[in-house]
């Protein structure tokens, strides 16, 4: 018995030194030994990924009536046909509910979880799939968990240590170092390959960085290339420990649940933060919830009312290697992370867009939409006006009233005065 434990311990030490030596240390210094690149190349060959052209499509879907071309002024019984047809089309497929589930793949990527419509699986494919399962669960998963544990422990320990120092430039520099190295280790822990574009537009201090939201991993992706002040709710448990230690080394903005309801208090805290030019740029996800990375949904105007310079960032994941979308209805955080760590890899592109500020005569909503369109356009995502909150809530009645108003003005024709003042 004793002997077995000793052997196990020695093996563990060897394992740990390999991991630290070959992965953690190079990661911390931003050096790549090329393992991930080779891995991705092999994956690409195996999955026969074809580079797909991302079509830029822009829909304006609020206007259900946009299709009535031959509409004459009077009501006819076949007007109902139009609404009926649109309704049935939306029952078969709509623009909104599909954004809250994972994207369908054009060809199978050997993960059971994406095998919905690919019915026939040959023997050869099954063998490759089995090999894939072994590689992912028995080799990659333990490696990734080790890295994640190392990364997070380093974050907590490092930031606590840095927090002991008095405020100074050295402290800030060390804090940045600790944060970046930790996120780099975590990124390795997900086999993340990130391609950055337009680094000259990187967010600067005193600014606000906004990005489209697909999963909590977005934070790791963004923080690999820069330091940000995080914004979020105070959590308990492990998250709470991480949050408390992070805030010791540099200011982040954590809100109590009760504070979140008071919009003015929230705005004030954010304003104060960006007014201080020594503090790191804030990172905000204006959609407010995770979307499946095929579209960008409505940006909540709160972040756009504070003032300051907005630095938009577009993030697009390649779904062939692993689906990064967090479907919080289906998976909790732990099972989500396990899914991430048993995917092939996380491959994504990140574009830094030129900074934007609110122009004269533009209100917060218009500004938010402008930024949203820029992000959607760059990332090749569909630009939707629908609220991501529709994941959980009902749509507002006022949208239906808009439809009714539009239709009314069509059938009453030029006599708008009468239409608008009609009492019920």
């Amino acid at each position, binding site marked *: 018995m004793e002997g077995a434990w000793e052997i196990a311990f020695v093996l563990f030490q060897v394992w740990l030194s390999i991991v630290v030596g070959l992965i953690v240390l190079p990661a911390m210094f931003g050096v790549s030994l090329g393992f991930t690149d080779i891995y991705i190349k092999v994956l690409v060959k195996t999955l026969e990924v074809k580079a797909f052209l991302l079509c830029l499509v822009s829909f304006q879907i609020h206007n259900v009536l946009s299709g009535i071309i031959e509409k004459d002024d009077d*009501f006819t*019984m076949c007007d109902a046909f139009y*609404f009926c047809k649109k309704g049935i*089309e*939306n029952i078969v497929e709509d623009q909104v509910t599909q954004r809250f589930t994972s994207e369908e793949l054009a060809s199978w990527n050997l993960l059971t979880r994406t095998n919905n419509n690919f019915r026939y699986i040959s023997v050869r494919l099954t063998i490759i799939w089995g090999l894939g399962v072994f590689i992912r669960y028995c080799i990659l998963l333990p490696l990734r968990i080790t890295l994640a544990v190392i990364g997070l422990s380093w974050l907590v320990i490092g930031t606590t240590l840095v927090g002991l120092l008095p405020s100074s430039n050295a402290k800030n520099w060390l804090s940045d170092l600790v944060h970046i190295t930790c996120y780099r280790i975590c990124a390795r822990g997900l086999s993340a390959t990130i391609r950055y574009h337009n680094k000259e537009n990187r967010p600067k201090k005193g600014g606000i960085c906004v990005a489209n939201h697909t999963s909590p991993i977005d934070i790791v992706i963004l923080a690999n290339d820069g330091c940000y002040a995080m914004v979020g709710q105070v959590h308990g448990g492990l998250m709470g420990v991480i949050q408390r230690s992070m805030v010791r080394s540099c200011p982040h903005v954590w809100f109590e649940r009760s504070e979140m309801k008071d919009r003015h208090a929230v705005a004030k805290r954010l304003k104060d933060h960006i007014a201080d030019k020594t503090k790191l740029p804030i990172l905000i996800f204006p959609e407010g919830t995770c979307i499946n990375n095929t579209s960008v949904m409505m940006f909540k105007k709160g972040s756009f009312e504070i003032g300051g310079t907005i630095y938009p960032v577009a993030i697009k994941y390649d779904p062939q290697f692993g689906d990064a979308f967090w479907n919080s209805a289906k998976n909790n955080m732990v099972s989500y992370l396990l899914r991430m760590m048993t995917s092939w890899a996380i491959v994504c592109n990140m574009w830094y867009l030129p900074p934007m500020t609110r122009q004269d005569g533009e209100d917060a909503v218009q500004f938010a939409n402008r930024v949203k369109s820029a992000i959607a356009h760059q990332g090749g995502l569909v630009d939707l006006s629908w609220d991501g909150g529709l994941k959980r809530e009902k749509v507002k009645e006022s949208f*239906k*009233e808009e439809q009714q108003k539009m239709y009314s003005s069509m059938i009453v024709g030029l006599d708008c005065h009468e239409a608008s003042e009609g009492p019920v």
Partner: protein
Amino acid sequence: MGSRASSLLREEDIEEIKKETGFSHSQITRLYSRFHSLDKGENGALSREDFQRIPELAINPLGDRIINAFFPEGEDQANFRGFMRTLAHFRPVEDNEKNKDLTSGEPLNSRTNKLLFAFRLYDLDRDDKISRDELLQVLRMMVGVNISDEQLGSIADRTIQEADTNGDMCISFSEFIKVLEKVDVEQKMSIRFLH
């Protein structure tokens, strides 16, 4: 944890639905995936709330009437067969109808059946007549609060006058067909289903 929805649908069921509705095999499995994703309660049937969860349908002025069409008389649950049967009305009318040899009468997506579907949007009490009140109800749903009662009433009266041939101040199904005979119903009441 992926949704293996297509494996819950048996081949025999697919064949029966194929015969009854004229949809292809792949269309049926695809629509079953959609049915399954709408079925949040995972009980094999859709409730009215499941339909209301589609935002674009919820803001459609005739949304409630369209949803009603999926639920047989007095029932609160729509199973997959019923779902497909209702959707079948909106299949485009092709020249070479695969199911021309249907012995059970006309195919669900014939012009007459499409018109009957539309007729039933108006005729809530199923007495095979659209009364003035029923017409006003649908008009009110489509215009909201933007048109006065008087004006709406006159629109309804005019419509009935144009269509009513037997003087009973109601629109029967044959009168409905007659007044819409020049309308391209096949195009207005068909949608494209992906293969």
